[in-house]
């Protein structure tokens, strides 16, 4: 008989992976298979340490050491004609490897090639800013800090970009709950009304399917409108959806459904 292994925590994992699961991989090719990339890689290797390099989906991926990032990008911009930094950010691999991957997606218009420069840094390490080389890195680095909490040295204006300045936590970390932590859940209430208002306003309703048909402080279905806060013991009163009161409105012509025109021709 097979030994019993408790499987209770299977559902608690972020993703369920079955036993023989092999994550699909995009095939990698040798750098030597592309002459342009091979020369670029040679130029980088002459000055910096390259940890790994391969070609994936017609783009070269180069792993470098994090302290070389400014140097490598400077070399690529000034000498290898990779004049655009089209994208940069980080990937959270903290639970797997205890580090972040930072990537710089470079584009050369003259060579019509793209290179992805990658480096890995530990949780509390900082990375050098490349804003002096590429202006586009200005906001990207701020976003990287905002979303992952990665500090960037020598950035001209280093603060959060998407979340409010007084936000706590970095939302794109894999450990950050989608519905927000305690701070996020009460952020607007705490800020506007103060902590003591929490009891009055109450917690957020996070249940998508929450329907309380007797709640007259929030919703009434169209056609079942009730006054704010009215008590309805059971069943919603059906209200005739009339725009005007029965006895007409002062100085306004009465709207008669019978005399109105219904347009059925959409192209009219």
């Amino acid at each position: 008989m097979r030994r019993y292994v408790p499987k209770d925590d299977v559902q608690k994992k972020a993703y369920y992976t079955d036993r023989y699961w092999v994550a699909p991989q995009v095939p990698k090719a040798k750098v030597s298979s592309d002459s342009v990339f091979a020369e670029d890689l040679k130029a980088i290797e002459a000055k910096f340490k390259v940890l790994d390099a391969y070609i994936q989906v017609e783009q070269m991926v180069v792993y470098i050491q994090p302290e070389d990032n400014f140097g490598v990008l400077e070399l690529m911009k000034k000498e290898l004609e990779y004049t655009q930094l089209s994208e940069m950010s980080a990937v959270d691999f903290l639970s797997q490897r205890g580090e972040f991957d930072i990537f710089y997606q470079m584009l050369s218009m003259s060579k019509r090639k793209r290179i992805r420069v990658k480096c890995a840094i530990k949780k509390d390490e900082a990375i050098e800013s490349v804003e002096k080389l590429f202006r586009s890195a200005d906001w990207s680095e701020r976003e990287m800090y905002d979303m992952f909490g990665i500090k960037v040295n020598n950035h001209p204006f280093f603060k959060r970009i998407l979340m409010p300045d007084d936000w706590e936590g970095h939302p794109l970390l894999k450990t950050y709950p989608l519905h927000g932590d305690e701070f996020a859940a009460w952020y607007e209430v705490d800020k506007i009304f103060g902590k003591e208002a929490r009891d009055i306003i109450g917690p957020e309703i996070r249940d998508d399917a929450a329907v309380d048909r007797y709640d007259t402080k929030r919703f009434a279905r169209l056609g079942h409108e009730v006054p704010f806060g009215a008590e309805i013991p059971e069943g919603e009163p059906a209200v005739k959806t009339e725009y005007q009161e029965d006895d007409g409105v002062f100085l306004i012509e009465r709207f008669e459904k019978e005399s109105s025109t219904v347009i059925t021709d959409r192209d009219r």
Partner: protein
Amino acid sequence: MAQHQVNYTQDGGLPVALTTIDKVVNWGRSNSLWALTYGLACCGIEMMASGASRYDFDRFGTIFRASPRQADVLIIAGTLTKKHAEFIKRLYDQMTEPRWVISMGSCANTGGMFNTYATVQGADRIVPVDLYLPGCAPRPETLQYGVMLLQKKIRSEKAIKAQKPKRLL
């Protein structure tokens, strides 16, 4: 002078209409509902369409204003993020009494599909809402219907009584 004689008892004879102050004031209020331009996301597009020529909100006296000081109704059209929450509160506070709020679309009603850390789960956590419009996005007809319902609501309010300012807290 007989030909100029006015029969005051006949319709249209006396150049006077009798009504209550309530009715006149509410008639004025409900037919000049100036709305604050407040498109926050995709619902704002429908709100703009409602104001433009095809649906033409001007017919109802609903003219979009760019300043909260001139606005009577705040149409929250779109996703209210937590970062933006304090500004909507500030703009609401800057509007003069009496003021009304229409929450337009699922996002403003409940947070809608943005069941995430960054979205306010219902604009009524920040400002008191008079009318919720369902839909993602509600069609301009819905907004039109909503404005007409709001007009109806205003007509039923007491105008001359010192209005209790609406507060969430």
